[in-house]
């Protein structure tokens, strides 16, 4: 890839200088240093595959130097490219240093040539693409479209896990029922109320609430407890209705009730 020939930085031709100046005028028109390099490479009038990277580097560096002379502000990446091309140029010009690490100047130059060729190829491809027949310009889609009505169908589904969990839920509910519902040893408020409403008519004087417990609820502690509670709650209910009076002499003393006589 390297061109031998003029090793010295000999004066660039007038034509080259003019080209460079033309470039400077609209440096804003370039999309970055690679684009500028590609444009410059066109002045070599050779196939991009045979391009002289060395002379391209020179051309670019000359351009940068001129731009600086003309105090044109260049974007950083143009300067970065200049620095890199200067490095590349020195690599290409100096005999290879066996100690040197990294890729050789030739490899770097070859890659730059590849990049230029690839960019040129993509430019051409883009142009070809845009030159194709385009929808809405050269060919057309249907003008009158018909709406597709959507018919929604709902499909129900369940997994085996759902099924088993549902069953588990039901069975679990069953197991817990005895705790909350099916207790034989529970007297409900309604039961007690019913019974006391009936009995209260006969109780003229203060009577211990516990004497109202039905006989069959007095033996079994659990039943007795429940009946006591139910009776107490029923008493409160009846007192609220104004049918009985309640009293308790002291804390934890027996609770007594009696029928309330309206005329008193």
């Amino acid at each position: 890839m390297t061109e031998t020939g003029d090793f010295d930085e000999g004066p660039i031709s007038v034509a080259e200088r003019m080209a460079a100046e033309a470039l400077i005028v609209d440096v804003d028109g370039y999309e970055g240093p690679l684009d500028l390099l590609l444009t410059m490479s066109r002045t070599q009038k050779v196939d991009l595959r045979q391009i002289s990277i060395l002379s391209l580097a020179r051309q670019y560096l000359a351009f940068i130097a001129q731009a600086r002379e003309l105090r044109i502000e260049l974007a950083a990446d143009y300067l970065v490219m200049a620095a890199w091309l200067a490095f590349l140029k020195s690599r290409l010009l100096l005999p290879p240093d066996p100690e040197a690490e990294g890729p050789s100047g030739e490899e770097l130059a070859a890659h730059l040539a590849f990049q230029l060729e690839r960019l040129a190829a993509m430019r051409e491809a883009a142009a070809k693409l845009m030159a194709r027949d385009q929808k809405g310009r050269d060919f057309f889609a249907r003008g009158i479209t018909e709406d597709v009505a959507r018919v929604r169908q709902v499909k129900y589904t369940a997994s085996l896990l759902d099924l088993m969990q549902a069953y588990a839920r039901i069975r679990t509910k069953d197991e817990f029922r005895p705790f909350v519902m099916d207790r034989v040893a529970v007297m409900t408020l309604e039961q007690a109320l019913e019974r006391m409403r009936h009995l209260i008519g006969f109780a003229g004087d203060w009577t211990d609430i516990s004497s109202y417990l039905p006989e069959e609820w007095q033996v079994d502690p659990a039943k007795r407890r429940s009946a006591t509670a139910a009776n107490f709650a029923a008493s409160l209910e009846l007192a609220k209705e104004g049918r009985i009076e309640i009293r308790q002499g002291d804390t934890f003393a027996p609770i007594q009730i009696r029928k309330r006589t309206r005329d008193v």
Partner: protein
Amino acid sequence: MSDDHKTDPPEQQEASLFEAPPMAEQERMVEAILFATAGPVSISEMMGRMPHGCEPAQALTNLRKRYEGRGVQVVRVGDAWAIRTAPDLGFLMQKETIETRKLSRAAIETLAIVAYHQPVTRAEIEEIRGVSVSRGTVDQLIEMEWIRLGRRRMTPGRPVTFVVTETFLDHFGLESARDLPGVKELRSAGLLDNRPPPGASSDDEKDDSQPPLFEDD
């Protein structure tokens, strides 16, 4: 691309100066115009768009014939023409979307009871669930072909029973309903929530904190 035919002065006199395109070509043009235009197109509009000397009316007649019996037709809309779907293919303009939803809790529970207790009557299902089973729930499961009617129970009233179907077994990947895991297995698999309902915890402990009134003697 193209040149502005529109601005050309009309029409008839100049027509003879130009060779009109062959009729087959005119037919293509009418076809493209009817296809791409956003509404019905009148003959005069076609004429305005097509090269001089064209006879869109004739081209249209040919085109109309060409589309006879096809999936779309050339139809007259007032004074204009359009391409429309053949009436018998209207059903294609519908699109079914299938939405998958989870079965309701009532349905899945009913299904579970049928699967575990089959053959089972509606009364039995209600007894197990503790709530009445709506007709809709049973109907849904029957419609899904997951349960079907079994034999009548030989008890008073001869109630119908429900059993699960092959479709059900297929869907749940079961060989038979007997393969369903039992409650014990469900529990050991962690599928049973062992937490008792709130308040039902342990009655015995509670007693200790109760006032002496309720103490046993």
